[in-house]
């Protein structure tokens, strides 16, 4: 469902994403790992059609991100790093706006809201303005926004950042459940999370893919915890 070929993007002299290629199929939950500034977010922003790549191509559900970005945006749900929203709106009116923009109307809208609001546990803040919400709630609103059109592809940039342990657990469950019939990419620093939810992991550093494997295979190969695997890979390759 996602096919990325030789994707490249630089900001001035800094090469953020340097020639990465991978494919993700339906039913896969791909964990994007890497140190800060590795290019995870930049790669994700290119996949969702927000940033245009300098070179290479990416297709999502058969649509090219450069030539047909609107079709790509229609089949993707995206939660950005800082869960952006409009602070002056209430949660309800914000979700209504997203429904408007995604052409979810009438009965469909009602059922979409009935599905998404309990899943993200935002019933209690539904009539509150987003600006007054805590970080965790804001992220849940962002997640609701990404799920509202029941997309085939989900791209979540640090989805559990700022959530309390219970919420984290619920989001993990949610991802595991959805992972069966969707194609999900999540980026994270939390390696336990990768073990729990991902059935594949890509480690990238300085814009390049270092490892593309499953968390289990990595642990067996290096015979240590995922934390140590991560440290070994990202530090040795850097000094080399």
């Amino acid at each position, binding site marked *: 469902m996602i096919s990325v070929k030789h994707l490249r993007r630089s900001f001035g002299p800094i090469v953020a994403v340097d020639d990465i290629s991978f494919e993700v199929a339906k039913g896969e939950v791909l964990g994007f790992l890497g140190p800060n500034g590795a290019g995870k977010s930049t790669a994700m922003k290119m996949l969702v059609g927000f940033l245009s790549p300098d070179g290479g191509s990416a297709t999502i559900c058969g649509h090219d991100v450069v030539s047909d970005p609107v079709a790509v945006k*229609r089949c993707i749900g995206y939660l950005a790093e800082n869960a952006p929203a409009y602070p002056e*709106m209430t949660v309800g009116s914000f979700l209504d706006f*997203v429904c408007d923009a995604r052409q979810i109307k009438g009965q469909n809208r009602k059922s979409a809201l009935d599905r998404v609001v309990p899943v993200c546990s935002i019933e209690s803040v539904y009539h509150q303005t987003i600006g007054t919400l805590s970080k965790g709630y804001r992220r849940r609103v962002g997640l609701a926004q990404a799920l509202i059109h029941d997309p085939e592809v989900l791209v979540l940039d640090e989805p559990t950042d700022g959530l309390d342990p219970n919420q984290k657990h619920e989001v993990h469950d949610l991802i595991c459940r959805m992972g069966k019939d969707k194609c999900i990419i999540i980026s994270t620093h939390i390696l336990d999370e990768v073990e729990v939810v991902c059935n594949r992991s890509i480690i990238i550093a300085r814009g390049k893919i270092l490892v593309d494997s499953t968390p289990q295979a990595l642990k067996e190969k290096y015979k240590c915890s995922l934390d140590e695997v991560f440290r070994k890979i990202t530090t040795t390759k850097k000094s080399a």
Partner: protein
Amino acid sequence: MTGLMAVFKRELKGYFATPVAYVFLVIFLFFSGYLTFKEGFFEFRQADMRPFFANLPLLFVFMIPSTAMRLWAEERKTGSIELLLTLPVTVTQAVIAKFAAAWCFLGIALFLTFPVPMTVCYLGDPDKGLIVTGYIGSFLMAGGFLAIGSFFSALAKNQVVSFILAVAACGVLVYAGMPSTLNYFAGIFGPGSVPVIESLSFQSHFDSVLKGVIEFKDIAYFVILIVGWIWACSIILDERKAS
């Protein structure tokens, strides 16, 4: 198209969900009324709206960049642009929707000046056509200023910077048409330069609409101005949305 309408609706509602709209309306209505009566509305002893319209360009130079400055600078600063542009809308649609919402808001502000024409009608028997063309001209001019403002808002991430740049650009376009400026340029570049500079400025086109004549060249001036700056805005935004 649905994306465009959704963004338009959200934007327009957004003005009234924050103090922006109310502060703007109060200040705008106060000064548009104050300047009208201060500039000798009663002393002219004529039932027309010339004193009201004559002050609008100057008022717009400051007021419109203040509405336009937040259009894109705020979205970029808070990161909500990343949400907006990952919804199924194109950059151009988003730019047009936001511009249209702001223009609509300015239309509401102009509409709320209705006590001025009512006063004029109460005091005498004004030429209604002149009032209508005056409002059309003002609305078009507001659109022109707004397009310039939205361009600078996309250019600078900082709202203050975008405000100052927009005021400067609008100011240049208004003052280029003032007689004193034209005389000055005539002294440097010769009298041949006067019609060129005059036709580039807001003032001359606005004045001719105020006379009650809606000419093709004046409408074309405003339309080209609006389309041009909006187009530039969407190009610059496409380039800079991520940085």
